[in-house]
């Protein structure tokens, strides 16, 4: 991780009156796994589509390993691997036929093509199922072949757009292992997800996106340290939630309180210590608690602290 491979400056994308991406600037280092985190509709996939050359930006500049993307799109595309969120395969062909086709599109041929197909099948652990039609695969196996296609031409940078949506634990684990192994071999990865645990496991740095803007960017550990308050999530049955909120706000360790219907998200430095005081308030007011949850400091709570809402909303 010693040089910049991708530089993004003031990137914006608008559709008539809707602004999908607003003034994004960030730099990706070679050999890094960089996470783009955000809820559905935050602008992650649009950002990735622009970076992969699928969409032209409205404004801004992208430089891939010294190449201005707007002027060298075809050259740049050969160095990019895209694994889209959709399972973009030909279901009536076998996995091997799919790989042959995509390999040829990237200019691979002959023995080199066969060698690469065998290698990527090994990476996604589907060598023994390669000759089966894709339409008999499970969702997870399809996602693994989806990943394998993105790796065929040995890209310098790999864009993974929500690669584990809807997959079984076995396939999810296989994808994690593949990404980690590829990164150890030097591949740069941009990984979009709304699963915080994935970002915490895989990413060296993350950018949190909401409403098309980056609202925080750092290593997961630094973000949790600086922004990651624990959250006590408390649901109250009756009309006393306003009184509970008022008293909770006065507790010394409480940094912030968000209210969503009958639920209070109480952001605190130490959840264990504050919990007893919160419960004493509810008992004193005879408020009936219907649900109680403690979220320890994590990227999930970082997002909650920054936006006031859950990542999966």
């Amino acid at each position: 991780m010693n040089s910049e491979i991708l530089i993004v400056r003031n990137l914006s994308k608008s559709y008539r009156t809707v602004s999908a991406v607003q003034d994004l600037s960030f730099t990706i280092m070679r050999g890094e796994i960089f996470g783009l985190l955000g809820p559905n509709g935050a602008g992650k996939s649009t950002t990735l589509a622009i970076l992969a050359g699928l969409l032209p930006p409205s404004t801004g500049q992208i430089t891939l390993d010294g190449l201005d993307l707007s002027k060298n799109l075809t050259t740049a595309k050969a160095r990019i691997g895209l694994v889209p969120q959709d399972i973009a395969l030909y279901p009536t062909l076998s996995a091997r036929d799919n790989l042959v086709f995509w390999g040829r599109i990237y200019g691979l041929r002959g023995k080199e093509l066969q060698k690469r197909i065998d290698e990527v099948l090994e990476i996604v652990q589907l060598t023994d199922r390669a000759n089966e039609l894709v339409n008999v695969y499970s969702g997870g196996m399809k996602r693994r072949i989806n990943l394998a296609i993105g790796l065929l031409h040995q890209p310098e940078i790999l864009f993974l757009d929500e690669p584990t949506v809807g997959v079984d634990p076995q396939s999810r684990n296989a994808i994690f292992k593949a990404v980690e192994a590829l990164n150890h071999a030097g591949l740069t990865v941009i990984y979009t997800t709304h699963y915080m645990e994935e970002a915490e496991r895989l990413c060296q740095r993350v950018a949190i996106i909401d409403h098309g803007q980056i609202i925080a960017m750092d290593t997961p550990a630094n973000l949790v340290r600086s922004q990651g308050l624990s959250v006590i999530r408390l649901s109250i049955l009756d009309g006393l939630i306003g009184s509970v909120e008022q008293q909770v706000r006065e507790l010394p360790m409480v940094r912030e309180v968000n209210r969503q219907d009958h639920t209070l998200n109480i952001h605190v430095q130490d959840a264990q210590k504050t919990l007893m005081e919160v419960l004493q308030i509810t008992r004193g007011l005879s408020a009936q608690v219907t649900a109680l949850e403690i979220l320890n400091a994590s990227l999930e709570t970082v997002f909650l602290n920054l936006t006031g809402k859950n990542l999966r909303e």
Partner: protein
Amino acid sequence: MVYQIVAVTIKEIKVLLRDKRAFTGLFILPIAFILVMTTALQGVFDAGGNNHPIDLLVVNQDHGAIAAKVVADLSSATGLTLIEEQDSQPITRAIAENLIAARTYSLALIFPADFSDRIINAASNPSAEKALVSFITDPAVGNQLLSPVKGLVEGYIDREASVAQAPIQTRQFFNQMASAAPDGQAGFIRNLGARFAAQMSGAQDSTAQNLGFDIQVLPPAKFQAVRYPSSAEQNVPGYMIYGVFFIITIISASLFREKNEGTFRRLQSAPISRTALLIGKLLPYYLLNLVQIALMLLVGIVVFHIGLGSHPLGLVPLSLATAAAATGLGLLVTSLGKNQEQVGNLSTVLSIVLSALGGVMVPVYVMPAFMQKLSLAIPQAWALTGFQDVIVRGQGFEAILPVVGVLMGFALAFWALALRLFRFD
């Protein structure tokens, strides 16, 4: 770029080979149409020919000789098979009506008992009641079958009636002259009339008579057909063109599948141009059209023994131009729709309606004038004309160039408009 085009083409062919719906629509359906329609319509197209003569029940109740002579004339005519007996018994009117009601036969000709008497009476009394000849026919039988038989019967009756009436009218003429002549000459004139009439009667073996003319049917000099088209020669090119243009349904389904499954979008992240992608994508369908044409002509040749005209090489540019128009129309139809359902319905309706308007199912010349004009804007109509020019009319390369030019014009217009409107997302 060529390598990528070939890669897309090979992939598309592999996908197509596993697409049973496409295979059915492009091959099974048109071949089934060719087999069924050609066989079913053989009677209509070839009716009256030596190979498929029209069966005509004949009920002769005439007490005189004229109806028998008409029947003798009809029996010597080509294209008719007269049936006068059933189980060695003469057919009666009741039997004929039963046979037609049972759909065993379609047509019966009835001569009344007084047929000869009335014709002979008419010779001397123009205002006498006419003989009434009847046709009994299944109401489902069209005029195309009835009219020629009716015309033939009328012609022979006219001839035999003239032959029977001529001596009577001659004798009457001389008798009238004799009445007006001086007494000494009246007998001579009557005798002269009787001798004329007797000589005419003696020479009235009408069936052996040389009338001094015959009829032949010829194509225009610039056509080189040695014979007129059979049912197969009409239907094989017709349904072949229907099958060729059915490709628009398959193309639109395939393009929308690529869009819906995200493969088009993913392909755009690869270093392949949109032009190469579209060429590679549509080339298999173009080739498939050519295979369709070859296969269906082969079915026509093997099953129905059709010929390919005097200049079969003319079929090559015609096939290339027809396939270009069909694939261009497929891309254009896809470009006009927003989703697969919309385009699926549009392409199915278009492939059937345009084929019908183009004369695939009903020949253009039997359509109303405005539909005939409309067919000039239908590529299927031009394609059908071109194939029939070569196969049926025996025309060569130069003669069909205008048709090839029009089809290429359609193709260019379709492709230009489609490429302008097509969206990859």
